[in-house]
């Protein structure tokens, strides 16, 4: 009886691991903030205030939530097929490039045509950048962890190249494009908080990911391959096609993250325009247990964190470097508390799969 009770208590404690991690990170962060000569209590009050305390703060949080949500969904989608997409940053840039190019080239089109076309182009651009490592993995068993990382560099340096060359603004001063035509912008839907249509699209994407994964035959295939590729193939499920498709959709969602940022916030394409949303997407997906609902909540959490730290810098004078350290610390602790067991399970499955058939 006693053993039972203590075991149950332990499992509750373990289930709440992310909560402990957040608390731990805040404590450690408080120490660092104090070292920087700022009262941690004031700092955290400013963080909360900055993230959720005012309309403009909330707006900033939601603005950051949009690309984080797309990116988190992207990572989660691939994860359900047993794939670890670390190439979000490159896919996001390539998606934004294709979308941005389309918007600049067909600048005369009316908004109802241009905006959807640009979004689709961004999805395809990111999708292709994701599908390539997917194909390499599915057909020749090249680790998608490695190839997606490498393709990041090709992706954002290629974007940088175009912005120093063919797509550069006519002034030729900064590595950035002309302002995108207004017809391609994501319209503001809540002016007081400056929230744009991207938020709605991201939430729709979350619903879409849920429907595809759990209601359709394609999602069924993807999850089957993700759980046990050998068994899926034994049942006649096309594993290669499922994996490539999963990585295409994953990259496509990353492309939308990029599109949301350039069409909703920056209104032009510039090199290295993303502050790491593609990588943060990994944390968002893992903290959200790779389920669309969880991912949405995690995206708000990380969006708030980003907005809040912006505020502490502004109001409390916390040095940028220190803000980034504390933010990184939170990220590492939270992600490791949630992700390590899951990642280990995924890697173990991969090992088992590559060792399979020997027996």
């Amino acid at each position, binding site marked *: 009886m006693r053993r039972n009770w203590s075991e149950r208590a332990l499992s509750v404690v373990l289930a709440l691991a992310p909560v402990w991690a957040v608390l731990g990170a805040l404590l450690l962060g408080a120490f660092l903030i104090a070292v920087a000569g700022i009262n941690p209590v004031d700092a955290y009050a400013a963080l909360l205030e900055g993230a959720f305390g005012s309309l403009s703060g909330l707006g900033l949080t939601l603005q950051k939530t949009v690309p984080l949500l797309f990116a988190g969904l992207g990572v989660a989608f691939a994860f359900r097929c047993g794939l670890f997409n670390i190439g979000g940053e490159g896919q996001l840039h390539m998606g934004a490039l294709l979308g941005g190019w389309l918007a600049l080239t067909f600048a005369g089109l009316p908004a109802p045509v241009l905006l959807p076309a640009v979004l689709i182009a961004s999805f395809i651009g990111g999708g292709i950048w994701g599908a390539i490592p997917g194909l390499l993995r599915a057909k020749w068993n090249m680790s998608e962890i490695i190839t997606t990382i490498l393709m990041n560099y090709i992706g954002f340096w290629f974007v940088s190249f175009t912005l120093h060359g063919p797509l550069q603004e006519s002034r030729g001063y900064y590595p950035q494009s002309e302002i995108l035509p207004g017809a391609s912008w994501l319209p503001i839907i809540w002016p007081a908080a400056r929230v744009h249509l991207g938020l709605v699209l991201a939430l729709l994407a979350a619903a879409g990911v849920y429907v595809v994964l759990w209601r*359709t035959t394609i999602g*069924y295939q993807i*999850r089957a391959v993700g759980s*046990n590729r*050998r*068994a899926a193939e*034994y*049942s006649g499920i096309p594993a290669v096609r499922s994996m490539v498709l999963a990585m295409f959709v994953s990259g496509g969602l990353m492309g939308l993250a990029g599109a949301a940022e350039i069409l909703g916030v920056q209104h032009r394409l510039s090199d290295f325009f993303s502050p790491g949303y593609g990588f943060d997407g990994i944390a968002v997906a893992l903290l959200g247990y790779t389920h669309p609902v969880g991912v949405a909540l995690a995206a708000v959490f990380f969006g708030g964190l980003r907005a809040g730290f912006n505020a502490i810098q502004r109001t409390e004078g916390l040095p940028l470097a220190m803000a980034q350290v504390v933010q990184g610390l939170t990220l590492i602790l939270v992600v490791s508390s949630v992700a390590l067991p899951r990642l280990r399970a995924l890697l173990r499955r991969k090992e088992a799969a590559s060792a399979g058939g020997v027996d």
Partner: protein
Amino acid sequence: MGTLLQLENITKVFDGLVANDRISLDVREGEIHALLGENGAGKTTLMNILYGLYHPDGGRIRLRGETVRLSSPKDAIMKGIGMVHQHFMLIPPLTVTENIILGLGSLRRPLLDLDSAAEKISSLSAGYGLDVDPRAEVCNLSVGAQQRVEIVKALYRGADLFILDEPTSVLTPQEVDGLFNVLRRLVDEGHSVIFITHKLDEVMDISDRVTVLRDGRLVATVNTAETSKQELARMMVGREIVFRVDKEALTPGETVLEVSGLQVDMEDERCSVALQGMSLSVRRHEVLGIAGVGGNGQTELAGAVVGLFAPVAGKITILGHDTAERSTKGVIKLNVGRIPEDRQAQGLVPDFTISENLIATRYTEPPLSRRSFLNFPFIAELAKGLIGEYDIRPPQPALLAKQMSGGNQQKLILARELHREPDLIVAVQPTRGLDVGATEYIYKELLNHRARGAAILLISTELEEIFTLSDRIAVMFRGEILGIRDAESADLEEIGLLMAGVRPEQQPLREMTP
């Protein structure tokens, strides 16, 4: 005889599941002690505790009267315990000597002292009649020889208590005799042996005493001479076994599966087997049993028939359809039911529910899905029906496959593969790891399909299973079929020799008893 080992009230709990419940056991010096029980009775858990792989939650271990704490296999080895696992712990490309000295120090550090080690191995193996060549590469050795290497390895490390986990499951009947001779030599020299098994004949043949486990509990320890197979069976299963499979005599019908000149290449792994031109056929109302020691190409044969491996040469036809160009899915469409070798790795998607697993081979067909959307009401209806029909427990369609017992996982696979009355059934090791009840169920199910008119290709390393179910028996060795015999008139000894690779023309002529 003194007492070497005492296990007292050993208890081990996994996630609230009691694997060992206060088990006590003692082993005397110079005895062969059989540990008997069904799969899941707790035998392997108990032995893993003794070998330091698990730590008991309760109870104590006494060796030569002294209480010991074994926190790792290294501790166990230091205390003179040697274990021969069911799956050998050898590195195939290394030589016997290199395998045996693995992890031990050398007198000539930093250099290895292979020569003196090889000498010691030779003398040890000669002393116990083990016939082990220290310079052979392990991957060129037969399974029986690899097992002897494991025994020498334990001897080399100074073991005086040997634990053998299901040692006969990988051997031919003749190799089993050889192993038993070795074990007798070991106990003659004063060593002790714990022999884990679920086979009653072996217990009666080799052991001095038997300890029977059931559901993680000790049933009894008895002297082998004072018990019988019937009594042991009753203790092991907990009820009277009426294990009799009635196989009615049937006339085979049309040919369903025809394999001719089949060649399959192996992926470039060392020590693997390719198929080099094999032919066989299976007809309706017939079970063709493929006997053979594991790893002689059975996996490749089954894989080629169900469309997982593409043959390099030869032809496979199912009811007249050539399957060379067909994918797995295409073969399934020919109404073929498959029971895979490894139900965890091939048969089931562990994170899928019972319902989801039941539709894995035909989720794209209406009414299971329409326009890419899964039809959940229909799937639920189907699952409910099949769960009832095949008595899958617990009867919860939303239960994940990985949460089910082995027997019920196998029933789930049976339900998926057999409920549409396939013309051909390819069953590989259909009862591996299952208890008596589940085994009986699966035999009956297969024989019902035989009666209905299915052709069944049965691949199994359990000879008893082959003899129980087959109408004809083919023996596979190194990717070839060495002979096909009618099950009625097949001779166990001859089948055993074929399994060991002795071709019919090389076998001594036996006198026929009139």
